Each structure stands twice: as structure tokens, then as C-alpha cells.
């Protein structure tokens, strides 16, 4: 079937099998390998993308569900060397180790700050609890989200 959606700010039209998983569409068909797959069953959050500004698991979505939507992947959050404030905070706080959960974790953090602009540490922990990380112990990720909130408030 033919689907049309905005991908990282650009309109795209594709002819795809309607049951193609979105994670496969992104990684294999469109070469956007920043979105990771780590379980394929919706348990780990590594494949998180933003659909109409809300976090979605691309391993549980089918291509047909993207029709008419606005999609952002990790590749769309930065522009050249200019980073999203959350990406910048992840670097500064040391929230990145192996990095395989990072794109999904960043996407979920963006979604979290959309919903709760000034979260407590506990709210950050609960908000990111759908994204598994095996390296960091999460503390520096929580630090990074807090730092991003402070940066956004300073910029205001």
C-alpha cells in the first residue's frame, strides 16, 4: 500500500507492505539505523521513536499506522553539529556507555519533557522505566534529563 508521512521534517511517500514493521522500514528500507531493535516484543524501548510528538515502539508498529503522521527518529533530533538539548545533556552528564539504548532513551526523554516539563527525579525514573539500559545504572541518565530541564529553563 502507499503511505505518506512526515519523516524528520521531510514529506515521504512509500509503497510498502502494510504489515512491514516500522523498525524494519526505518532501518532496512530507509537506512535510518539510529533506531535500534533489542527485543522485538515491546519490552525494552530501544526502538522508541516519536509519532506526532509521542513516544512509540517501532517494533510494535506496522507501516500502515504511519500514514498521515509526523515521525521523528533520533536522526531528526539534531541538525548537523547542533544538538537537541537532551542529546547535549546526555553527553555532558556521561549518560552514554555502550550507546545501544541511547537513541530510544533520548526519544523517551523528549516525550517525558513534553508531558512533564519539570519532572522530579522520581518522575524521570518512572517516565523512563520502559527503556532498559544495561550499562549505566540509569543515574547519569536521570542527571542528564535534569540538566536538560535546567538548560531549557535558562533559555526561556
Amino acid at each position: 500500500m502507499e503511505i505518506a508521512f512526515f519523516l524528520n521534517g521531510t514529506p515521504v511517500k512509500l509503497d510498502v507492505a502494510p504489515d512491514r514493521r516500522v523498525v524494519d522500514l526505518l532501518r532496512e528500507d530507509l537506512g535510518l539505523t539510529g533506531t535500534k531493535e533489542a527485543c522485538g516484543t515491546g519490552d525494552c524501548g530501544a526502538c522508541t521513536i516519536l509519532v506526532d510528538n509521542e513516544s512509540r515502539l517501532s517494533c510494535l508498529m506496522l507501516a500502515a499506522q504511519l500514514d498521515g503522521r509526523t515521525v521523528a527518529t533520533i536522526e531528526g533530533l539534531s541538525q548537523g553539529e547542533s544538538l537537541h538539548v537532551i542529546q547535549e545533556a546526555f553527553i555532558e552528564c556521561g549518560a552514554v556507555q555502550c550507546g545501544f539504548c541511547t537513541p530510544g532513551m533520548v526519544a523517551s526523554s523528549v516525550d517525558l519533557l513534553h508531558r512533564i516539563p519539570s519532572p522530579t527525579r522520581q518522575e524521570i525514573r518512572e517516565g523512563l522505566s520502559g527503556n532498559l539500559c544495561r550499562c549505566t545504572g540509569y543515574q547519569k541518565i536521570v542527571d542528564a534529563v535534569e540538566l536538560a530541564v535546567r538548560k531549557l529553563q535558562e533559555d526561556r
Partner: protein
Amino acid sequence: MTVDRDFERIYRGTLAIGSSVPRVDAFDKVTGRQIFAADYYSPDMLWAGVKRAGIPHGRVEYLHVERAASLAGVHAILTHEDVRGSNRQGVVRKDQPVLCNDKVRHCGDAVALVLAESKEVLRQALDLVGVGLEPLPAVFDAEQAMKEGAPLVHEDHEAGNILLEGHLKTGAGEDARDECDILIEACFKTPRQEHAYLETEVGWAQMGDDGRLTIVCSTQTPFRDRAEVAEALGLKYTDIRIIAPYPGGAFGGKDGVTVQSLLGLAALHSGGRPVKMWWGREESFVCGTKRHAATMYYTLGAKSDGSLHYLKVRLYLDTGPYDHLGGVVLALGLEHSGGPYRIPNVVLDGWCAYTNNPVGGAFRGFGVTQVTAAMEQMMDMLAEKLGMDPLNLRLRNAVKTGDRNFVGKTLVNSTGVTECLEVLAAHPLWKEKDAWKSSADTFKKRGVGIAALMHASGYGPFVPDFANAKIQLTEQGKVRVYCGVVDMGQGNASTNLQIVGSILGQDAAHIELVQPDTDRTLPSGSASASRCTYTFGNALIGAAGILKERILQRAADLLMAPDAKHFALVPGSVRHLRDGRELPLSLVAQYLNESERIAVYRFRAPVAGEVMPVGEDLRLHGFPHTLFSYGAHLAYVEVDELTGKVSVERYLAVSDCGTVINPQVYEQQIHGGIAQGVGFALSEEFQVKEGRVLTPGFSTYLIPTAADVPEMESIPVQLYEQTGPFGLKGVGEISTNGPLPAISNALFDALGAREGEYPLTPERVARVIGAGDWLNASGSMLRW
């Protein structure tokens, strides 16, 4: 919401030793630009997948591949008959078939390899491969496996199901038992643990037109992989190139071959097309290695003044059907089974046994996690019986430099366990623990527990723990570092950059890193054993020193200056310190020929001079070590009396891992290890019934989420280690070992009772609370 900031600000600036330089890999990882092995695709690529045994033990009767082969889109189906080499892989004892020929020995064993045009066809074809297996009697317990008449996992192994055993007696041995005023006996069982790296086992391979096989894979051991693949597939070592991008987590589970030989075999039969293999999560859980399940029988004896006098340990490890470093895990476990203490009389006996369970293997902690769980609870039980403060009991017996540790090894390197315990004792979390405990809500109980830790680094006395650093001044005047050791997330690539930058006076913009690649970088051992930065860092210091001297001397010659000592390296240039003249490095590079622009230095880690009376076998497997990191951990724990749920509220880790090159990277290691240890202690129950994995994914095997890990504090006790690069010791593993005993000790503090089996799930804790039959520390839990 994108903000315009000067990204360079983050990266420029000092690379000085001791500063928290942001990691060099972080930018590509937060932007999704980092290409992992999982991200390799090619237009004409085939997908390779494995047909698994599905039963724990059986004879291969037949393989029917015709139906699968006739499916449109199936390129090839391969069996053991297509393997030209030894068809055996492994690190010590090469006992694991690439594709099973005679028997299958666990449910995850590989019996056939399918190459298909798409993932969908691959899945259908794998279902259509017919595998005829005649079930054989199987064995699922290490102690049972050692009994007379137990089914044999490898009929050709002389010692039956015993992969390795180790024994050590010091002092008066068993005779010292009667000299003790107090004896504590207990048994502990720790379960398998799944690595659960986010990037499952994955790789991409292709045969080149030149007849060389290239394998890009998620691995900790590219050079060793090359040797294993060559032997198993009957290829020339030099005809294989392994490229190791940053793995998406490894923790020991990629310390050795996973997809490599299978991928190599697939590429040999793909007609020159590239091939990709990517294990799914369930396949990773069933077929990947696990932390060894352990059964540990302990007797600890002391004099009434609290001095440890006698230790007897019987340690059983279930290694599954293959030697995935199981013997080495046993040796390291035995060497740490008595903790960082002086104990004059010791009897250690350990066995690592073959079973038909999932494969036991390397996992951060490597045998030490298991025995520390036991020994540090023994210490608390002893303190309880002596009426001594558990911290004071540890301080009283803690080893110092110059002491013999409990296996009789004289400690000649920095030994900071006492300092760690003293820092912990002075910390508010220790001093104010009683106030915190007494403020628990209704139906909640609180407790505080500690654990003292030691963890060796390196390979021990026999296997050379070496690294070969290579640094190049490029024609463009940049410094290129050829990293020989994989960075699986622990940040050693960034540390390499920091070490080189500090010696050669360069900032990050003037340094390039080449990740491990058997064609480009030099053999430097595995990314394991808390050895990466210790061993490779020492080699880098040597190589950087050589290159620095060459650059300065050539600059002095070019400027007709009498003494190279008057020059210094600054970012991008060489500067004469007296008259301020500068030469760009790109210019100096032109006046050095190609071989002069490359500096290579080999370092081999020091080994123990003493030979322990443990037999040659245990020595070959790494006994004893000479260099140890130390630590003292503290956990604040709250338990819900109604549900049995245990939560860790605060956590403190004081560590002696030498001096700190990068505080942020150091803390990452401590935090990550604690989180894995908290999972091991509380929620990660890898359930196996008659060889079958009952918890094959994240919905049944629960690793900690952000909501399950406490706020952690890490304090480094920065003792300078004379042999370490800039004074450091290994920090990669030690913190994994603390949480289980610290949490279990805290739970005893809260409830006055202790459980000997783990993890401490709500079900397990509630059951014992409800039954009211928790045994206290003055009795034993599971007598034998």
C-alpha cells in the same frame, strides 16, 4: 526545541589525566550516527539463521533439509558436513561444535544453518528443517553430574563431566577447625545471570574477491575470534579479518565466539554475497552464555577475639555443556572465595562440571560475584555470633600490603581495602544508619548492610597478559591511536585518547581513534578481566613516549636547536619553549618517513612470583593473580512485610581502583556494576527446568529499570598503584560483586533472618516471612 550551542566547548579543552573529559563516542551515540555491527546492511545481503536443537541432550539421527531448501528465497542450508575444519570452537578446551555432528548437548545447540533472501523466508525455512534427535539421558545439576553413572556430556573427556577441579590447603588445613572458638557453616546457591546486553549477538560477513573472509561482529575478542574461526572452518589465520565496532554491551557474553564461525561458514557458501546474522532476544537468552550457577558450602572459623582462623569452601559451578572459560571462572572464584582477609588455615575445593543446561561463561565478576555473595554473608554471620560490629570484624582481618592473603599470596601491590572500609565508616550513611532504620513506616522494615570486596585484574601467571599499542603521526599532522582492545561501552577508547592526548599535548580535535581490526590494530588481548586500561594504557604510555621523542627531536633538528628538551607539543604543533617558534605537526610529519611516524610498544602485565600449591591445572587457568582492586559497599534496604518486596533506597561504593584518569568514566563503571548486582540480588531469576529456559525474554527475566536502581554514591580511594598507568588499577568488574551480599546483610539487619537462595524476589522473601521459619545467623541454613 533544538538549541544552538557550541558543541566544541564540550570537546575542546583539557585531556588532562584526572579530568572528566566527555567520552569521544558519546556524540555519535546520542545522534544515532554510531554504526554498530547490528547496523551493517548491504543491498544484496543474505540473512543467515540457525536451527536449534530444542532438547537438552540427544543423538543426531537425521537432518531433513529438502522441504526447507525447496522454499523460494532459500539460498543454502548447511550442516556439519559443510564444515571443513575441526568444527570445534572454544577458548581453553575446544569442545563446542559450530554445527552439531554427533550429539546435541543443550537446547540452544546449532544443528543447521540457513541462508535466505529475507528475514521472513529465513523464519519459514528454519521451521521446515527437520531434525531427528534421539533423546539421551541428561544431567542438570553440577553435583549430580559428578556422581558415578551420571550421563556423560562429552564421552571423550577423560575426567568425565568434571571440566576442571581445583584444590588448595594452607596452614594446618582441616586440623585448624578444632582450634576455632566459633564456627559458622552455611550453604549458598546463586543462580545463572543473563548478560542482557541491548545489542544481541550479531555480525556481518563477506568473502572478498581476494579470497579473504571479513567478519564485522559484536565481540570482545577480535584476535582470538580469528584464531577460533580459522581452526573451526579450516581457513588460514591470515585469510580472516575481524572488525570490531563498538559493541552494544557485552559484559563477558561476547568474550569468545558467538555468531562468528557460523557467519564465516555462511559467507563461504553465499556465492560472494554478504551475509548478516542477528540473534533474536529469545535466541540470545537460550543460546548465549550465562553467569555460572553456583552452589557454595562454607565453613568459617574464628578465635573469640574476632581473628579469622579457618576457612573451608566447597564450590560447584554448572558450566553447561561447553568450556566457555568455565575452568578459568572456577580458578578465579576459588582465588577470591575467602575475601580480602588474612586466614591462616584454608581448605578450598572446587569443581566446574559439564551439564546439559545453558552454557555457563564469562560474566562481569567472573566467579568472584558468586563467592563474594557467600563469603561476605559469612562475615556478617560471624560478626553476629561474636557480638562484633560487622565493619570492625572486617577491619580486624583486612589484608594490607605485605600480608599474605587467604590463599597465601604475598600482596606486593597497593592494597586499599582498609582505606575503603575507613572511608565507609566515616560516611554519613554509616554514621546515621540507626536514625534511618528507626524511621520506617508501618509494615516496613529497614536494614543496612555492608560488604568488603576484592577483584583481581589480568590473566594470572601463565597466559601472557600483554598489549601492543600503536600510534601514528598522520601526514596531516594528527595523532592516530590504534586501539587493540575493544570498547564495549566501558569507555576505554576515550581513556586511550586521554592518555595519548596528555602525553602528546594534543586535544581531541587532533587525535583519531581506530577501533580494533585484525588488519589494522595490533593484538592486545581481550576486553575483559578488568585489564583493558591497565594493560593497554601501559602500552600506550610507552608508544606515546617513543613518538613524542621522535617528534621533538625532528623538530629540534629542523629548527637547528641544540636540545629537543626545549620543545613541547601543543595542539597541532611543536613549540620552542624559549623563543616561541612553532612548527605545525603537519610539517614535522613531512620530515619523518612512514616508519618513523609509527611508534609501537609492547607491555606485559606483571605476574605473581610465588607458585601456589594448587597443581599445574589451576595455575594454567590463572591462579594466582598479583594485582587486586578493593572496595567496601553499603546498602540501605527497605522490605515490605506484607508483600516481601525489597527495595534498595541508597547505595554507597567506596573503591580502591588506584588513581582515576577520568572520574566520569570511572563512575560509569561503578554505577553500572552496582545496577547489575542489584538485579542479581533482587530480580534476575534465570529459570531453567530440565535444560529448558523458562524466562526467554525481558517480560519474564526482569533486569532493573530506572525505577529499581537506587541513588548511588561512588567514592574512589585514590591510592597510587606503582605498576599502573598513571597509578590506576582495574575498575570494570569489582562493583558487580557487592550488591548481593550487602543487600542480603541489610535484609538480615532488617528482619533478623537470612535466605540462602537468590534472587531475593518478593515471592521468595514473602514465603519465608510468612512461614516464619527464617533461620537466624546463629544456625546454619542448609546443612550438609
